[in-house]
């Protein structure tokens, strides 16, 4: 059973046009990265570009972040809903409304409908995480927000910001009157629009070259082809009904019991479908952790894609084979207004990605992944204040310098640059020097924590610890770190990752342990420090190749003690003398 398996599919022309469109998304991405002003966009690449069709099919996503891209069709759907009658060439819309298909308010999406000979054929989408969106407190992740009113973001439900290629300056002034560091915001705004305009120009050239009919044919063929890739992949899997549960940590005051999360997954190779059932989950809660529809869908789909052939295209064709059931008013379903979705793209979504991809390990060795590290801690904190090193200027930005460790996989260890399940290591890291240059701050250390990884036949990545504080003027720091209570789980005998811990170091030198959701103001001389979680392990650590354990010890990822106790590998010699070697006899004894 394959879709539209007819003689009309052109293996050659379909590939050629697809490659051209990927080139267009690459050009959009490059434009946004290079021209943007905030480091969260121009250094960390917390943005995604994609191209949708006029009927809201996701067509191409380039290197977009998993949590951003699968919901692109929902964004353009909202644009159609509000503006179908008046949609015109030269329009551009700003959309950040989580109740109308966006991920969370901090992601500003720019939507440019692309017309060819008067016909709306595509919509170019550039979605970028902003440094600030005018929230009531200086953070773009407000875990404690009771509702959207307390969160306080400016909301744009697919609002027309350009008409006939002219920007509506009223809206620019509205934003400048509310968003912190407005010049930085305006630079990012221009870069976002610019990326979609580049796509518009290139898509028109593409249609001129091949003709609109060929392009329409391509859209159909490409989506069908992608669906066929997914069909083939699902048919390789055994039929199974998988259940997984997990939890987000409790948060003092707003979420005393945490959030329990359940997912049921039916793998149906005969129908070539995978059903994802999230109906059995709690109601929306008065905090910022409610997940938007776009994020639930993206997180669960990302989890599925994590366990399949990575070359399957990510678009509306392949995801036709994924059926998701959501409940209205659920914390991971379709949220009910005005519950806040301020932190929708990370915390609960991170858990959803993990629970989805690790559920597949229930199919046996070779399937699924361990849970990856979660928790946006100090290394992903939103910092703000006034830079008094020169003329006093306000600053606000999210740091992306250190994240959680990646999950053990069926044939590879976790990556230290994983950061979070929702972005899977795609984001870039800020440079310490760039951060210290741009903000009045100093880092004390940033390094791997030895012996912190979730052990396994294939281990998770260890955690990364860091410490920093302001050098001139007070600095406000916010982060909503999950994983201080519930560690990322290992699977198939693999061990759990470590939990996250953070501290505030007072001027007196005294260290106070911080809660998981942090809002502190640091004076000069004070610091925050700590680490978020490491990745869970995959498979029994006692089955890990002893040579890999030796290498881990030499490289300082593991300790000699843990090698013996956890991995059952004993050594002769020592690290300092460069004589460390596997003691085969003792290792065999430890492993029986």
């Amino acid at each position, binding site marked *: 059973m394959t879709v539209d398996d007819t003689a009309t599919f052109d293996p050659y022309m379909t590939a050629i046009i697809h490659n051209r469109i990927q080139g267009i998304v690459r050009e959009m991405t490059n434009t946004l990265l290079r021209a943007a002003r905030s480091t969260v966009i121009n250094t960390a690449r917390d943005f995604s570009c994609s191209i949708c069709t006029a009927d809201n099919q996701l067509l191409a996503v380039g290197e977009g972040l998993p949590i951003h891209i699968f919901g692109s069709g929902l964004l353009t759907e909202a644009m159609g809903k509000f503006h179908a009658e008046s949609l015109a060439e030269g329009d551009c819309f700003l959309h950040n409304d989580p109740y109308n298909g966006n991920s969370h308010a901090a992601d500003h999406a720019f939507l440019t409908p692309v017309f060819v000979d008067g016909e709306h054929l595509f919509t170019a989408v550039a979605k970028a995480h902003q440094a600030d969106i005018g929230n009531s407190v200086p953070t773009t992740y407000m875990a404690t927000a009771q509702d959207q009113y307390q969160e306080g973001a400016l909301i744009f439900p697919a609002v027309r910001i350009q008409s006939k290629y002219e920007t509506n300056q009223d809206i620019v002034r509205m934003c400048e009157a509310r968003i912190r560091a407005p010049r930085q915001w305006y630079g990012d705004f221009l870069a976002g629009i610019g990326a979609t305009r580049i796509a518009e120009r290139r898509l028109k050239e593409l249609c001129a070259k091949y003709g609109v009919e060929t392009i329409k044919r391509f859209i159909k063929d490409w989506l069908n082809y992608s669906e066929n890739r997914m069909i083939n992949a699902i048919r390789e899997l055994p039929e199974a009904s998988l259940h997984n549960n997990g939890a987000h940590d409790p948060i003092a005051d707003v979420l005393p019991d945490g959030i329990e999360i359940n997912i049921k997954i039916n793998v149906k190779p005969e129908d070539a479908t995978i059903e994802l059932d999230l109906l059995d989950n709690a109601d929306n809660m008065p905090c910022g952790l409610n997940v938007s529809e776009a994020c639930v869908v993206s997180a669960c789909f990302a989890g599925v894609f994590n366990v399949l052939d990575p070359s399957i295209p990510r678009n509306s064709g392949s995801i036709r084979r994924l059926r998701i059931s959501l409940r209205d008013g659920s914390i991971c379903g379709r949220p009910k207004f005005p519950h806040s979705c301020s932190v929708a793209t990370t915390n609960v979504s991170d858990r959803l990605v993990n629970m989805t991809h690790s559920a597949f390990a229930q199919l046996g060795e070779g399937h699924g992944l361990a849970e990856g590290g979660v928790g946006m801690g100090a290394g992903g904190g939103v910092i703000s204040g006034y830079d008094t090193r020169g003329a006093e200027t306000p600053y606000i930005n999210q740091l992306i310098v*250190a994240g959680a460790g990646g999950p053990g996989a069926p044939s590879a260890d976790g990556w230290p640059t994983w950061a979070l399940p929702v972005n*899977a290591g795609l984001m870039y890291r800020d440079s310490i020097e760039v951060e210290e240059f741009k903000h009045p701050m100093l880092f004390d250390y940033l390094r791997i924590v030895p012996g912190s990884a979730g052990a396994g036949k294939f281990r998770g990545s260890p955690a990364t610890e860091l410490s920093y504080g302001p050098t001139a003027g007070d600095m406000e720091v916010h982060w909503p770190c999950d994983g201080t209570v519930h560690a990322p789980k290992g699977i198939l005998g693999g061990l759990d990752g470590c939990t996250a811990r953070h501290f505030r170091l007072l001027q007196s030198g005294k260290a106070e342990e911080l809660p998981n959701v942090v809002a502190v103001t640091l004076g000069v001389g004070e610091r925050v420090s700590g680490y978020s979680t490491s990745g869970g392990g995959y498979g029994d650590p006692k089955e890990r190749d002893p040579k890999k354990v030796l290498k881990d010890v030499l490289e300082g990822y593991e300790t000699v003690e843990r090698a013996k106790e956890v991995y059952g590998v004993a050594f002769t010699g020592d690290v300092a003398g460069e004589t460390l070697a596997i003691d085969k006899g003792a290792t065999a004894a430890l492993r029986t």
Partner: protein
Amino acid sequence: MAYAISVDTGGTFTDVVISKNHNLIAIGKSLTTKERIFSGVKDAILNASGNAGVDIAEIFNETDRIIYGTTHATNAIVTRNTAKTAFLTTKGFPDILLLKEGGKLSAHDFSNDYSAPYIPRINTFEVDERIMFDGAIHRPLDKTNALCLVEEIKRRNFEAVAVCLLWSISNPVHELLFGELLQEHAPNIAVSLSHQLNPVMREYRRASATAIDASLKPLMQKHLRSLEEDLNNVGFDGELYVSTVAGGCNNVSSLIEQPIYMIGSGPAMAPIAGSAFATEEGTKTDLIVCDTGGTTFDVGLVRDGNLTFTRETWLGPKYSGDLLGISAVDVRSVGAGGGSIAWLDDAGLMHVGPQSAGSNPGPACYNQGGEKPTVTDAAVVLGYIDPNYFLGSRMKLNSEAAFAAIQTLADELGVGVQDTAWQILRFASDFMMRAISDITINEGLDPRESTIVAGGGAAGLNIMMIAEELNCSKVILPRVASVLSASGMQFSNIVAEQSASLPTVSSNFSYEKVNTVLAELIDRVERLGTGSRKDRDGTVIELTVEARYESQVWELDTPFTSSIFDGQSSVATLVEAFHKVHERVFAVRDETSDVEFINWKAKLVVPSGINAEQNPEKRDPRSATTDQHRSCFFGLEKEISTPIYRATELLPGHVVSGPAIIEAETTTVVVFPKMSAEVTMSGNFSLLSDNGETK
């Protein structure tokens, strides 16, 4: 003035180009001899001297200048045969080389381990010190701690040390101090200091460059000194230069100091060659210079007569490889060539590559056991390559095997064997075309108004197809297309570059500091150039600043001329130069924004003395004739009886109208229908897509 010899030693072959009084007179080739590099070099020179009909002893005695390029440094890194190197960094930051700048190519791919840092963590040392962004000393270097580390480095027999401390670019005092301690206590260990080698902000880029550089020092010193000695022993007493990725060449001692510049120096020479041949042809447009190898397709640019540079050259894959970090000639390489394999995936979509049959087993037609359909097999099926005249008959191809291989794919596609071959060639061309698009877009260069200069043995097969897709109407295929890098060296200038990091902003310009830095840089490059002859005319110092709008973090190279800033108008001129560059690359300028200037660069350029000049001879176009014909397929209804020309029988002025095939010893040129090729007065091929007159 007599001979100049350029030598390009690759992993397999050594190419030599000899010129006499500025005219290229001979090409030579031999196998590279890794155990003693000079043997292969000598063989290649012997081969070339034979071709030129001159005695090799005479050539050695009368050669003024040898320009040497090698992949030795790159190979040493690929095979991890570099020195045992220690990485020394600021206490608290041992994982700069491990964590890099993040990023991953394929979001959902969990099949590979994370790549190891260039220098293992076990060889990483942290020294207690800390400097702040403005150069202020936050924690002075702990000398006792530093001495302990020096002793440890000695005890563990390290051969090289890479020193990269945070903010050494703002205040190098700690790096210098550690360097002095090493010099004092371990004088035989090679050292690279990051603020001297690559003074840019962003610790990973600086550290990576420094680590790579230090790890190459012992090896490349030995390599270059022994070559120098061997050359002296055969009577060569001219100047020996080494080609660099900075887009020129420099003397041996400066490369021993900074061997990182030898990485990728071969491909960096291609745009220089392209520029020279375009000048011969009187071309004034921007250039896209392509070099087609068996497995890779390289693209570089010449914009407004200048090479383009990037700090983002990766050794190995993007993100997971190691970043070169230095400002290097921007040459993009994609995996595509004659060996690329065509296949259909499980849902029936066509792909060409990234798998390659390489040279062993090679394409099916090589008859070495390869069965999969490749681009070269497609060219055989299309009739473009004569199986009996491949590489000037040096290798006989099996055309039945090519047909059989393509037929397997044709059966899957359900189209004819020739149509399949046509699609494979077009597919590969499309991939190469996109590689060109990516680099031209990045540089804001319009392919439609540019000229392609194509080199490499396989270039002639499909370069016209690529040009047509780009709407680029003119292609130059140099007569020495197969040795583009070695010919580029002949024209390369002596280039020495120094840079310094000094962030300043247009609204509060640090006049004094900038002027001091520029004076220092100019002094430093002049000293680097003193190994070369000072009396050459036309020596210039080119100044560039890497600049950006306020709050941006990616800089653009902005050239300027004044080495002294003395007031608002001088800064305004610089700001305007930046606006222009930003507008060219991103199509917008932001007049309201301040401009931040970050890295200042001075480049000394001593002309080689060899300048390409437009050939003054008058064109005399006339049609070429031949009685040889072969059936070729060009994607039309059926195959066409196509005239076949031997390059050796074509003379300057001869015009060949498509469809036609021109066969040379080292390359085959396909002139597609409605296109034409002309042999220029300099003996190059000028290819036109409109079958018309040369513009």
